[in-house]
């Protein structure tokens, strides 16, 4: 299944991408945010380190979720550091 990954702020800079389609080949139907993180971590040490920061925030379809949230085809999953607006 294919999902959209979005990266923001320092994570976007470190990983050099802001948005891309990601195909989870080894899974069918559903996966968790944790599974997507671990699949993306296979892209190399930079990805593994960036996606495993303790304060990383995950937003699934524009809502902040924990890593056990279920991801389905067509979803938008964003990763970013803690927000600092206002």
């Amino acid at each position, binding site marked *: 299944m294919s999902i959209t990954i979005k990266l923001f702020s*320092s994570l976007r800079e470190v990983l050099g991408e802001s948005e891309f389609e990601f195909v989870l080949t080894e899974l069918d139907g559903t996966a968790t945010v944790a599974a997507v993180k671990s699949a993306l971590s296979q892209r190399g040490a930079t990805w593994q380190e960036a996606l495993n920061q303790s304060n990383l925030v995950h*937003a699934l379809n524009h809502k902040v979720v924990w890593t056990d949230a279920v991801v389905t085809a067509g979803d938008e999953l*964003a990763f970013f550091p*803690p*927000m*600092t*607006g*206002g």
Partner: protein
Amino acid sequence: MTVSIQREPIDVAREYAQLVGPRPGAAVATFTGYVRDHSDAHAVSQLELEHYPEMAQKVLMALGERAADQFGLSRWRIVHRYGLLDVAETIVWVGAVAEHRGEAISASELMMDTLKTDAPFWKREQGPDGQVWVASKAVDQHRRARWRSEEKA
């Protein structure tokens, strides 16, 4: 009752006039945030604000609606900027109209405390040693947590 996420400066006088309209409620509270010329560690000459447009819009709308429900607001408005900002420019403006001052002030405080930690904006300061992403502050998390404990109650 509305949110604006915009690149252009906030016209505070116009925002205020539109919020209160010809017949203000009994109590109006507003907050305006400006770019400071310093952070905790260094001088700041410019501020860049990155955001996640679709999510920011949804989070700010939900926040305004929550404040309106919780404090019985008749009107509210949240304006937040993005892009490159100079020192002393406006960053954020919130306004709340209620029956009494307590509700108007508390609603403004709830909106500000919550948007700082929950709305997807990220500040990057231009300082003497280059650009630095602003780290989230413990004090902001604590202020946000006060409202979270009320959510559970």
